[in-house]
């Protein structure tokens, strides 16, 4: 398991390749990455992500450990950035390795669902029309009930 919380950008391809390398018993690698999304109706200048140093790493480890307990996984990677980011920049990624794809897909979805509302990150959107904290969605909380 590798958990990384950092301000600087990461290289999705390099991270995915490094994650997949060196194992011959994993038949499935799933990666997901979240990207800062612009909205033509409300143009975004940048997104700023705040987090809770210390708790963030603990929370991510707890979520990844739970994923490893629930699915047959070879490895889990979570990278999540904080600080200012431009539209199009990658915010975060998860990767899961498993002998079979179902475990890899489901574990990646589980990681994303929990990371959305149980890891202490907060997004602020700074647009040309002003700035606002992104509100948590009810559907993100509801997503946890399926697990």
């Amino acid at each position: 398991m590798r958990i990384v919380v950092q301000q600087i950008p990461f290289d999705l391809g390099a991270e995915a390749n490094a994650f997949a390398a060196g194992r011959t018993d994993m038949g499935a690698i799933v990666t997901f990455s979240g990207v800062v999304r612009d909205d033509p109706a409300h143009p975004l200048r940048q997104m700023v992500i705040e987090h809770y140093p210390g708790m963030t790493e603990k929370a991510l480890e707890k979520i990844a450990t739970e994923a490893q307990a629930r699915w047959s996984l070879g490895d889990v990677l979570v990278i999540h950035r904080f600080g200012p980011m431009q539209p199009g920049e990658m915010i975060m990624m998860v990767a899961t390795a498993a002998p079979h794809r179902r475990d890899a897909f489901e574990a990646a979805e589980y990681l994303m669902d929990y990371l959305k509302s149980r890891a202490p990150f907060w997004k602020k959107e700074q647009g040309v029309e002003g700035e606002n904290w992104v509100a948590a969605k009810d559907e993100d909380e509801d997503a946890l009930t399926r697990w």
Partner: protein
Amino acid sequence: MIDVLYFAWVRERIGLAREQVDTNAATVADLVAELRAREERYDLAFSDLSALRVAVDQDLTDFDAPLSGAREVAFFPPMTGG
């Protein structure tokens, strides 16, 4: 003494990222009541607890959680990771 931390709009509304609070509050809710009584900016920040989350020593918990032995309490809005 307890370290009290504020994040996102809670931090902005109170105007502080962290402070040390001298308190004998038994629960998080008691601490919130003490903070609200201080000044209007605290009162406003804590006016709707359903819009807030709390962590004690970096674990998410509820407002009725006990504070005995706690070193760090953090208040923040619902998280928006991912």
